[in-house]
């Protein structure tokens, strides 16, 4: 059986910009993934607030290799709440968007009622020294279960730091985790990191 032909960007955008059904818009996003560029962003942003279609739109935005996609996600944050907000926070983590760190830090601290676990996880995925520092604040000052979530995220961050030329920061983070979590999965992962050859 042959695959479904991939249509050009313009024809998919025409569907997204029309009053087409949820299904047609969902499939348009799934076709758009292959060919989407910055021109697709304006048609995708309105879908971010839809509980039904946001995941379809985010798949495209996560794939677009242009900073404009990250900016669109970041700009959408203040307009969203609930699951749509959590989804955009997750996408910013997937894209490892450093510009999002301050906004994610606020959400991770629980200032808003939504998006906290996703913000903590996204800081881990971004995994820069600044993101790790934001996680350390939650690790030392945050309430349970935020600390556990931050512990898991900090392991991911430490892996990024280790791979990306920040071995000392990675070691410091993993040593701190070993102390904070004297047993359990986070301890196991931190010890592994601490003893891994550079």
């Amino acid at each position, binding site marked *: *059986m*042959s*695959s*479904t032909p*991939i249509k050009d960007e313009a024809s998919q955008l025409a569907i997204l910009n029309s009053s087409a059904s949820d*299904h047609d818009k*969902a*499939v348009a996003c*799934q076709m758009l*993934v*292959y*060919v*989407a560029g910055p021109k697709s962003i304006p048609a995708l942003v309105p879908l971010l607030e839809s*509980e*039904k*279609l*946001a*995941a*379809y739109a*985010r*798949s495209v935005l*996560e*794939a677009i*290799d242009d900073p404009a996609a990250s900016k669109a996600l970041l700009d959408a944050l203040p307009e969203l709440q609930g*699951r*749509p*907000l*959590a*989804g955009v926070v*997750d*996408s910013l983590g*997937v894209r490892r968007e450093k510009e999002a760190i301050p906004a994610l830090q606020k959400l991770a601290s629980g200032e808003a009622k939504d998006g906290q676990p*996703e913000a903590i*996880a996204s800081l881990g995925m971004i995994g820069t020294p600044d993101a790790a520092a934001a996680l350390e604040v939650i690790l030392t000052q945050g309430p349970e279960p935020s600390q556990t979530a931050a512990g*898991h995220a900090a*392991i*991911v961050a430490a*892996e990024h730091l280790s791979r990306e030329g920040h071995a000392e920061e990675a070691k410091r983070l993993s040593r701190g985790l070993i102390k904070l979590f004297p*047993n*359990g*999965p986070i301890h*196991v*992962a931190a010890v*592994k990191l601490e003893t891994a050859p550079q």
Partner: protein
Amino acid sequence: MSITPTRRQFLKTTALTFGAPTFIPASALGRDGHVAPSNRIVLGAIGIGPRGRKVLSCFLKEKDVQFVAIADAQENRRETVRRMAMRAYDTEDCKKYSDMNEMLERDDIDATLICTGDRWHALASMRAAKAGKDIYCEKPCSMTIRESQELADTINRYDRVFQAGTQRRNVDNFRFACQLAAGGKLGTVEKVHAGILSLREDFSWLPEEPLPSTDEIDWDAWLGPSPWRPYNKKYTQGRWRGYYDFNGGATLPEWGAHTIDLCQWAAGADGTVPVEYEADGDTIHATYQNGVKLVMRLAGFKGEGDWVVPGTCPVRFEGDEGWVEAADSGEIKSNPASLVKDFPEGGLSGTDPSKHVREFLDCVKSRKKPAANADVTRYGHIVSHAASIAWRLGRKVRFDPATETFIDDAEANHMISRSRRAGWTA
């Protein structure tokens, strides 16, 4: 095993807190050939349908397993499994959970059996790993290349024992064939063949039906990381296969998770993947860096394809001094025929997971890596997904095994991952 003290502590604590039971069965004390509780692997299961029940029945037969919990989004499935446990143990102790996280929070559970639909395999496995559980997960274990990477990274991060449900690694005729090839008995391996089903991607939605109560079927949890679509009962009855949102890799990993995995072993390529992929209809040709060819070609439930050995999930390995072929019938054939003259007849069918389950349990105790560990699963699944992307694009794609990305190919790289629906991330 690393978490045994916690489990034993739990048993000790609960005994102190609640007092000793009035009746202690001989099996609980380790008499009558049973294994004492402190030496048993305590198992919970997630998402158990027909295939899951087959695998679970293998676990229930093992004396060093105590199955204690089922988590499933569907009450009828929870209850079916609870009754299985009741029949196996003659107790009412199997606890039902609609939320897998609640089950994973239990300190007394050592290992999880994950047999959900494909959409949940990687995510549930990663949640289990983060909770410190060992994992036996049905295949395909990932929806995308990215999930294949994330899954292996997470398993290794938390030092968990992971066995993919690619049980043919522990089925005799397949093992024998792989060992012939990898051991040089066919000469230099030149071409390996993986039987696959016809590729398909269905983007349609079934008509919307009224949502059942969440106590009956929690549709939101059933969908999990998949994008939203309206409820229709057929999906929850197993009719999710073939839909793009629920079946990764255009269904290629359905059998490819087994057959490509075996080809990787036979080609000595367990730690890498081919560098080129090109589709010709339902056949996909791939080439490893060393020139070995991987041909993914049609097989089926009705003997489709040009295979010598009958049965589903066939594989064929060709070297410059001979070939060997094996399939689910349990048969194996070779040229020269003498290569398989010592292979005993009457082995397991390719679909029988009993030896694979046993190997997993042994590895939970020894902390060794089982045959279908997270690393071989990563690479085998990446091949399936990369091949399906070549089919999807209808042209040749080149892949860099070091970066695990497509080379100079934005279209293909856009297909490496999919978003997870909010609320259902790792």
